[in-house]
């Protein structure tokens, strides 16, 4: 297990990381001005959606060490909630966003309460069961979701009376949401909540003995992650203007697992980097969907077997360059 906060800080060492985050954000701010073709901007929007989703997913996988396989449920729930409320009931973006995020927390409790009764592997399979149920409902409850014909005609996005129809405007909106998700994950990592989550993850029995209820903390993290994912789902409905059962597909889980494991579990910088890498690179290589997934799978397999800490290990190695040698952080078997 690698935890950034526990790295011994060397006296006089320059802290590069905050500067890098700021530079990255500044780069993201000016990026639309540099991208000539709308195609690239929509690629950037997709990349940012996955950044937010992967960061939210890592709050569950990395922070509490529970391998949830039902993350697309919350994303798809947000998308469908937005499509249904906006097209049939004329709700505004802000209202839809708030309601979906709140409802996603309730949904997370409904899934989490029974699922967290299960131990490790069984939790993964139990949540997978919920993911399949959600997909079947989206496909078959035609009256509510439109079934395989999808929900079409989601109205254009508008915030506080201003229509955000241009791709650039939508880019800034999702940038703000992704930054928000990173901010939440960062705040959790630095807060007492983060410490409690780490305690619950690393030794639930000991944490329980110290008065921290493992289930309560796991549910908290699960709920936060669900709310963030649903928020991205709402944006996705407006961005695509159509919501299909494929939005709940298990391939989203696959993509998120790849990002979190290649980035390095509970490493914010690793997960963000991996999410960007794995949305932008395939677009550049213009592979077909099937070959892309074959290669993804092989990369995931090799990474998880050979370097289970992913990019985080590379970052740590880079961070140590030119410094006095420190004790390597012990890697816990997980």
């Amino acid at each position, binding site marked *: 297990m690698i935890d950034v906060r526990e790295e011994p800080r060397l006296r006089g060492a320059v802290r590069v990381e905050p500067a890098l985050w700021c530079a990255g954000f500044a780069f993201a701010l000016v990026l639309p001005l540099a991208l000539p073709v709308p195609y690239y901007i929509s690629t950037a929007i997709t990349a940012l959606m996955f950044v937010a989703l992967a960061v939210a997913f890592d709050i569950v996988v990395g922070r509490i060490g529970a391998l949830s396989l039902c993350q697309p449920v919350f994303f798809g729930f947000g998308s469908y909630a937005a499509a249904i409320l906006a097209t049939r009931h004329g709700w505004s973006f802000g209202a839809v966003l708030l309601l979906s995020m709140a409802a996603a927390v309730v949904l997370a409790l409904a899934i989490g309460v029974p699922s967290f009764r299960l131990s490790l592997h069984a939790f993964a399979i139990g949540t997978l069961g919920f993911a399949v149920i959600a997909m079947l409902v989206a496909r078959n409850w035609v009256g509510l979701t439109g079934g395989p014909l999808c929900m079409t005609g989601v109205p254009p996005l508008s915030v506080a009376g201003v229509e955000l129809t241009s791709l650039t405007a939508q880019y800034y909106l999702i940038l703000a949401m992704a930054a928000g998700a990173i901010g939440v994950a960062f705040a959790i990592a630095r807060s007492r909540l983060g410490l409690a989550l780490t305690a619950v993850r690393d030794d639930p029995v000991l944490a329980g003995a110290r008065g921290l209820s493992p289930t309560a903390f796991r549910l908290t993290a699960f709920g936060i992650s669900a709310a963030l994912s649903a928020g991205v789902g709402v944006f996705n409905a407006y961005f695509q203007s159509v919501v299909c059962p494929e939005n709940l597909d298990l391939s989203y889980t696959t993509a998120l697992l790849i990002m979190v494991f290649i980035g390095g579990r509970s490493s914010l910088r690793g997960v963000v980097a991996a999410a960007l890498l794995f949305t932008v690179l395939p677009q550049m290589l213009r592979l077909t969907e099937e070959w892309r997934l*074959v290669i993804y799978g092989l990369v995931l397999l090799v990474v998880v*077997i050979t370097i289970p800490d992913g990019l985080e290990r590379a970052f740590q190695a880079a961070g140590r360059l030119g410094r006095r040698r420190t004790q390597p952080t012990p890697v816990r078997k997980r």
Partner: protein
Amino acid sequence: MNGLIEQLINGLTLGSQYALVAAGLALIFGVLEIVNFAHGELVMIGAYLLHAAGTYLDLPYPLAAVTTVAAMAAVGALFYVTVIRRILERGWQVQLVATLAVSIVLINLAIVVEGSLPKVAYSELGTRTVTIAGTQVSVQRFVVLLSMAATFGVLIWFLRSTRTGRAMRALAQNREAAAVVGIPVQRIGLVTVVIASCMAGIAAATMTPLYSAHPTMGTLLAIKAFAAVIMGGFGNVSGAVVSGFALGIAEALAIGYVSSAYADVLVFSVMIAVLLVRPHGLFGRAVRA
């Protein structure tokens, strides 16, 4: 009444398939403590092998089925050597994600190689029927039931009466202690994965003539087998078999009397309900974490 008998026979054959797949999963979990997310894809490979043996090699069905099961032993050995052996001593998240990655690779390779359209595997027994209580039943369904019964007979004999079978059970109880008394963990692990793979091959070889082979056929099958494994108590092979049959019959009845679209929803709701009441499964004691 005819409808009920038909659905029960459908349920029994479906249940045989789930039981074969679930028992393989439970075996791998019980002996090696690995949840194999690529198990459904082993069935998918078996189905394509049967299709290939019938179509390209022009073998008659019984020979094609035997060839398929033999080839699945080789597939299992390859799977063990390339993947399972490397993750045997790793953390559970790494194991789970590694087998999930194998499943993604196999599904999409199947799409690349064979296309996503279903392929049929012909069996002359599939079209021949007998009439039971006024219901026409395909002879192939009896092949499914008989091969399932024979497989479990052999498996129980093997686990109880052979040295290797006893070594597998020792490994399941305590891997370190088994290694200390000189049981070759690697070789027993290989045997376990090969047996589980052959059982997936038997499920594929007998069921595919009734349905068809397509790249994503393993996904839902594996999830239902997981449901049976959880309900049966993790690592409990006979519990998984009983739950597999229960799920198959429940699903067939749901298809017949409720709605085919929501039959799967019902199956997973049953799984979740069982977990709510008994988190360690119907037949399981506390699960080893």
